[in-house]
């Protein structure tokens, strides 16, 4: 995994301070979360970026493919005063507008893929952990088989098969690959609680298997599921950018994404010194946004991990 959530690395030391007056596990977790200013700050920044990205098609004055035809605005470096704040690319498209549309696409892929992967992972991991026996073995060995190969190799091969890659196909590929870590965690959690007293009590009251799984076992795994889902967000963004950097994924002709805008600079035959004259600003702008989003996603993931899975339960 490229962006595994670190365990036991509490970003803020006072997460372990005594928590008087708290009742339920979730309210304790919420208090621990609120005591981490870094986590709160990164959540706010990430939400602001994503909220802005969601409304880009309504906010941006022109489309991502609209060209400024004046000769002055072709391949123009960033200017702090002027119509094209972050410059233009080699055919006169505004770098800032393209970056914002790229944010819109990348965030859509990341959020949907993380959601689908979590749902799929909870369903498969929960079923495998609760059923046990050979269906458990088959499902988990299937996960092992997919997990044998390095992520990037598998994704590159899948992307070649799915040419031309659209945003929907990319989302599907990530969801179908990233359910594995979620399923492993949920399976371990459900399997460890399957024989506990409260499950036996529910069973003796005549509860169905589905009811036991959904109402009794999965709520106990909520913390780990939330942690896994949060860390998926950063993983999808990082992996998607890397695959698209190879020029394989969604083409910037179809839809700009943060990865393919950076990758465009390497297209053209001889590597990152494109003969078609893309200036450094055409990839520095999406790259900076990508790094900011990834820093916030990782900080949020670590903070949620520290709050929901404290090293020693209190």
């Amino acid at each position, binding site marked *: *995994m*490229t*962006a*595994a959530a*670190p365990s*036991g*690395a*509490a*970003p803020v*030391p006072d997460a372990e301070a005594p928590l008087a007056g708290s009742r339920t596990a979730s309210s304790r977790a919420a208090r621990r979360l609120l005591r981490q200013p870094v986590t709160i700050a990164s959540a706010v920044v990430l939400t602001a970026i994503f909220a802005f990205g969601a409304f880009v098609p309504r906010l941006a004055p022109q489309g991502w493919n609209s060209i400024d035809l004046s000769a002055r605005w072709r391949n123009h470096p960033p200017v702090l005063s002027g119509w094209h704040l972050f410059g233009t690319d080699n055919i006169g498209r505004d770098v800032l507008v393209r970056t914002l549309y790229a944010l819109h696409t990348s965030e859509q892929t990341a959020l949907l893929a993380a959601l689908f992967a979590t749902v799929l992972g909870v369903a498969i991991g929960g079923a495998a952990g609760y059923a046990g026996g050979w269906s458990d073995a088959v499902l988990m060995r299937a996960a*092992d*088989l997919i997990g*044998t*190969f*390095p*992520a*990037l*190799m598998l994704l*590159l*091969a899948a992307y*070649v*098969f799915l*040419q*031309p890659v659209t945003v929907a196909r990319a989302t599907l590929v990530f969801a179908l690959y990233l359910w594995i870590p979620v399923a492993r965690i949920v399976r371990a959690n459900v399997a460890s609680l399957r024989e506990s007293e409260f499950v036996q009590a529910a069973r003796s009251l005549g509860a169905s298997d589905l009811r036991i799984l959904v109402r009794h076992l999965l709520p106990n795994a909520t913390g780990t599921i939330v942690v896994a889902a949060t860390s998926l967000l950063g993983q999808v963004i*990082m992996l998607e*950018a*890397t695959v698209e*950097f*190879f*020029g*394989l994924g969604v083409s910037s002709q179809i839809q700009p994404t943060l990865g393919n805008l*950076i990758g465009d*600079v*390497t297209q053209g*035959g*001889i*590597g*990152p*010194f494109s003969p078609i004259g893309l200036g*450094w600003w055409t*990839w520095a702008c999406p*790259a900076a946004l*990508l*790094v900011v989003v*990834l*820093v916030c996603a*990782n*900080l949020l993931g670590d903070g949620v991990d520290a709050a929901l899975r404290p090293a020693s339960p209190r």
Partner: protein
Amino acid sequence: MLTFVLRRLVLSVVVLFVACSASFCFFATHYEPLRGVPLPHAYWQWLRGLATGRSFTHGIVFGPFGGQVVDSLERTLALLALTLVFVAVFASLLGCLAAATRGSALDLLLRIGSYAAWAVPAFLLGLVLQQTLGKIAGGPGLGLFPPAGWAGQCPGGLGIDLHTFRCPAAGTGIAFVGQVLYHLTLPAVALAGGFVGLHSRYLRASLVDSLAAPYVTVARAKGLPERTVLLRHALRNSLIAFVPAVLTDFGAIFGASLAVDWVFRLGGLGGLFVGVLNVQSTSPVLDTYAVEVLLLIGGAGVLLASLLGELAIGFLDPRVRLG
């Protein structure tokens, strides 16, 4: 211990074989040279080739490619080895420094740096290093390192001597090793950056835990200097978690090395894999044999590294070794 290793090895080989067979059947039924052939026949031919070794060296589209694979594998292994050295040295240095000065401004600075480093994808760091430190004619680079290519090779004219317009010779012996290291420095730094950030943070957390343990209090009470306490007592215990964590991250490092290798045109497995996948064209032709060999190398690397990780735990942790 030996039975454990043997059992894990056998299991890994079985997993690899099943995974490769499944992907072979997928590619053979979807891509051109084998699509017309009945699958059982194609699969049987490939299996027989595995036994004789022909499937590893001869493609159905490219012909013999064994030498190329060995070449690329050597280059990728060199890159990975240098990266592991960087990660081990810098992550343990920075981790110890942060743990020794925990709570100070330096600790905070190191933590910010580690998060920033982990958030920069390896390909992006590579691109930035290449453009700023590389030697590009007419570019903004400082020209400290060659921007791309392997020793004695200048793909696309990158890294040529700007006075003689010749590619610097690879040299022999020590000079060759020097040239290789000179060409590998930037890629290895780009690849190591994120993992140094991640693992220095892990090591710091683990060291802080160790430093609160009773045996450290005993060591301090004996009158040992704080440096000895940190390096001999706390670090020794924290390495039990650190070494396997680096080794189990091998899959991620290997994946990122494909991208870095491609950015710097090192001619390693990344460039070969992208070439074999026939990325730029949309033709339905794919050399299934070549793809399988590369997938096999990647999968074997990941499985081997995870096995080494478990062995390292046994080696470093006396409780496991004796128990």
